[in-house]
């Protein structure tokens, strides 16, 4: 660095405005500021997920066993295919976005319109896929029971531990169910959450009368598989069951550790919200391109800026995909 005092002319140059730090325009730099801070927010989420996972390293749910649905393939075990498809959709919409930016550099309005439209469609497909993923997650498929200590017991066949049995095939019909308490009944307008389709008593007696069903615990052995109890151990453990759990909510879920569902909702939800707002911003820019705002302005830098945001959303998904579904 020079130690001489700069001349008046240089100072005027520096302080007179019109200089672009890093040769990037104001808007682009501000978008980078936002992206860096948003990246830290997401890493905070993912690291918190890592914390809970390391804390429960021997009992965390296995993603392949949770996310194994594919549209139109009912009951087929298809781990990861659907998220992989979502990843490709998002990467592809990222590519159409870069192509739109590139067309903007060449001032080709028609091509910008075309590629922006493809990007918006890709983003909409992704958000829709995520909604479908949430629906499956919330609804659940087999159901489980939970103990007082928060352990989840799932039910599998003894001779084929890979095959799970749903509560509807397991539970015995016992007449005399209690009905859901609603705020219109009783005093003090209190209500309770939706009752599971089967009472604990029905599930437990169904389990006892089915000699070839055993319990699959949360615990993971050294090989990374869930530990499956013998029939005698299962009969002993079933007496500790306290709740019937179907699907997932923020309190308990049938897949295992309670925090797993919480992090699923928060991380994919936060990311999905980013995609949704990205689609909305893309639509605004799309219409601006259509009515020729940027043509008159003389440059398409707005497309580039919204493109930065869109790629960032894709970048975050790459990490969510790895840490939620692969690792």
């Amino acid at each position, binding site marked *: 660095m020079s130690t001489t005092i700069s001349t008046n002319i240089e100072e005027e140059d520096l302080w007179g405005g019109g200089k672009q730090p*890093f*040769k990037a325009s104001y808007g682009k730099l501000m978008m980078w500021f936002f992206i860096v801070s948003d990246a830290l927010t997401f890493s905070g989420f993912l690291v918190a997920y890592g914390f809970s996972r390391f804390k429960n390293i021997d009992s965390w749910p296995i993603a392949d066993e949770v996310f194994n649905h594919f549209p139109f393939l009912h009951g087929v075990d298809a781990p990861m295919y659907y998220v992989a498809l979502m990843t490709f959709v998002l990467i592809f919409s990222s590519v159409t976005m870069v192509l739109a930016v590139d067309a903007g550099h060449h001032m080709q309005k028609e091509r910008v319109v075309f590629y922006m439209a493809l990007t918006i469609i890709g983003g909409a497909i992704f958000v829709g896929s995520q909604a479908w993923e949430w629906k499956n997650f919330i609804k659940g498929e087999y159901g489980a029971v939970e103990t007082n200590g928060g352990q989840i017991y799932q039910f599998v066949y003894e001779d084929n531990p890979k095959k799970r049995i749903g509560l509807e095939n397991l539970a015995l019909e016992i007449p005399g169910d209690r009905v859901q308490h609603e705020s219109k009944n009783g005093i003090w307008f209190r209500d309770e959450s939706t009752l599971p389709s089967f009472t604990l008593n029905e599930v437990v007696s169904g389990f006892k009368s089915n000699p070839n069903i055993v319990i699959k615990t949360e615990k993971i052995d050294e090989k990374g598989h869930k530990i499956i109890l013998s029939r005698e151990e299962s009969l002993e453990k079933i007496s500790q069951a306290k709740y019937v759990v179907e699907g997932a909510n923020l309190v308990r879920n049938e897949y295992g550790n309670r925090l797993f569902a919480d992090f699923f909702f928060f991380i994919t939800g936060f990311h999905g919200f980013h995609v949704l707002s990205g689609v909305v911003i893309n639509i605004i820019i799309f219409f601006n391109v259509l009515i020729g705002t940027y043509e008159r302005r003389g440059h398409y830098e707005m497309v580039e800026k919204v493109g930065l945001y869109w790629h960032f959303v894709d970048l975050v998904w790459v990490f969510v995909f790895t840490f939620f579904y692969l690792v």
Partner: protein
Amino acid sequence: MENNTHKLEIFRGLLKFKSNQTKIWGVLIFLSIVTTIEVVLGIVKPEILMNTFLSTKLINWIFIILTLVKAYYIAWDFMHLRDETSGLQASIVITLIFLIAYLVFIILVEGNYIYDVMYEGFVSWNF
């Protein structure tokens, strides 16, 4: 605007594209290949990669490295960081790497410690 300011080579100059558009498609193909490798590894789960290495499975390290590779190409080619000044590149990347690496290190160590406490403690969590 800036028509020929794009740097058109990836893999340290191993692959040079004729135009910015062909580069974009090239990067897409590369990212798709990496994602496919990840998905195939995740479904097949080769037995040899299930050994523990540095406190997690070998396969997880491969996933993390491939993710960082993908992140590099998304940032460098899709977000045009390759065309920015080295000062801007450094202020984005070094900030993130430093803060995230620190956060990851300190919080995962803490999580591991809490696991140990719960595992070795006298309290039963299975009831």
